């Protein structure tokens, strides 16, 4: 297990994650500072950003001190020199989830953050192009949310079921 970078923000809780070198938990406020600290510590690449909707899992096991929210943003960072992976789970809020965009640190997260917005409705503030990416522009709702009505939209070539 690797250590947290020297100037990491207070209050970040870490534990040994499954199949990664370090698993961190952060609040919305700690998140940009934590990622910046990791970037300065040599994590050059943001390999993945995705959202998770824990609507049915509000009592999920979390380390002590972490306040569970409905949405999580999960960021995977990669240090290509030391060959280490870090995973950061950000508690991104329940009603109007919004976290800071990592665009200024890692331009490569642009499409991934747009996908998280499109699928979960998690907003990334200061993202240069916060638009839907996979769904059409005028789509209603965010499909990967757990309370999204599957079958709400009639599908062509099928006996369209009523709204579930």
């Amino acid at each position: 297990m690797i250590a947290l970078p020297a100037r990491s923000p207070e209050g970040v809780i870490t534990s040994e994650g499954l199949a990664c070198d370090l698993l961190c938990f952060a609040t919305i406020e700690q998140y940009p500072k934590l990622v910046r600290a990791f970037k300065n510590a040599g994590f050059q690449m943001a390999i993945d950003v995705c959202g998770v909707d824990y609507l049915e899992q509000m009592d999920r096991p979390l380390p002590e001190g972490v306040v569970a929210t409905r949405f999580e943003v999960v960021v995977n960072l990669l240090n290509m020199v030391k060959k280490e992976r870090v995973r950061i789970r950000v508690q991104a809020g329940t009603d109007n989830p919004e976290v800071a965009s990592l665009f200024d640190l890692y331009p490569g997260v642009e499409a991934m953050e747009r996908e998280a917005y499109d699928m979960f409705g998690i907003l990334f503030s200061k993202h240069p192009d916060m638009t839907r990416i996979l769904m059409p522009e005028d789509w209603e709702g965010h499909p990967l949310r757990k309370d999204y009505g599957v079958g709400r939209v009639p599908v062509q070539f099928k006996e369209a079921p009523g709204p579930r």
Partner: protein
Amino acid sequence: MTDRIRTAPRPDLLVVETSEGAQGLQSRSETSKDELGREVGSVLRVSGLTLDPNDVDFDRQDDETMIINMGPAHPSTHGVLRLMLELDGEFVLRTKPVIGYLHTGMEKTGEQLTYTQGATNVTRMDYVSPIANELNYSMAVEKLLGIEVPERAIWIRMMMAELNRIVSHLVWMATNGMDLGATSMMIYGFRERELVLAFFEKTAGLRLNLNYVRPGGVAADLPDGWQDDVAVICETIDARTYEYDQLLTGQPIFRERMVGVAPITAEEAIALSVTGPVLRSTGVAWDLRRAMPYLAYDQVEFDVIVGTYGDNFDRYAIRLNEIRESVKIVRQCLDMMPKGDYRVQDPKVTPPPRARIGESMEALIHHFKLFTEGMQVPVGEVYSAVESPRGELGCYLVSDGSSKPYRLHVRGPSFVNLQAIPLLMRGGSLSDAITVISTVDPIMGEVDR
């Protein structure tokens, strides 16, 4: 909340049905200076890296340029990729990929399927390299389950993954040749691919979406006489790569369109999270098979191929040589294939053999439980990654302890690599745009999922 979301009017002049609103490329009169700076190739998005403010032509007017639409039904976009290109004459100024035309909600589907069924879902994402998808998914599930697969399963998986890499790169060679007008390469690429697909059919019963690698091992043992088939495949393909070399590498027209066209630097590639051959073409020797070995890649010998200039030609040369390296690995698998089980003997994970069901009550119960309820996976979350032919293919899996994933997220390398396209196309001619799409090698099934 709504003021954070970018909006744009849908222009009346355009047919409304083809307008993507804010997702599309906006005309200059509607683009702010900052936005334009970012849009002019993604590299300008990297603050302080290669940003040259003088390079951005702010004062250009709308009537000097033209926004055209390429795709989603263009034959050279390899599927349903739609690019909006701003052209000055024949040169590309700005590019924006508009994706989602093949979005079928596979991550949502994955939440409805049990872990046993899940492999059939993920294998359809990157349909040119299905084994990599299944492998990635299975390894994530196995990490959550905490099981070790038998030695033979590991080696079978590795051999099939490398055969799949050969297939994938052959398809790339074929379509790339087609894009450049080398139609004979198209025929040759698909001819050799047929050899491997025939072997896949013999082994797994299917040619494309195999569902061969499953959580706990592989679906079936290798067929009798597989050594001969694999030996023939290795020998043929290894020899044929030298024919491709003769056909393409020194060919003046081919070189003219590849050498020095659309370069990318290592810093830009890393900043844009680009992986796979596109990253290696810049000279970064980053290959998960070597850097973070999984399966038994630390026991076989192979070279990580890197380029120097990051141009189209390097990306071609890397893929051609990776075919040879994969052949090398397959040959070692052939020699070192251990004996034993091809799947883990845990009745909670793998179904009992068909013959046992008729004679053993316990086997019948396990079989019934496994196919009606599925396997119970402990609560947890895991990110696991493999090197697919296109780059780092990752799988983030959240389990709530039931038999279906709570969240299945796949990090598709094509999806992320697509971000390099605006940068690579900047300043090039429209005909080079075709080669850029080709050498970045996006598979739309994986981009849109």
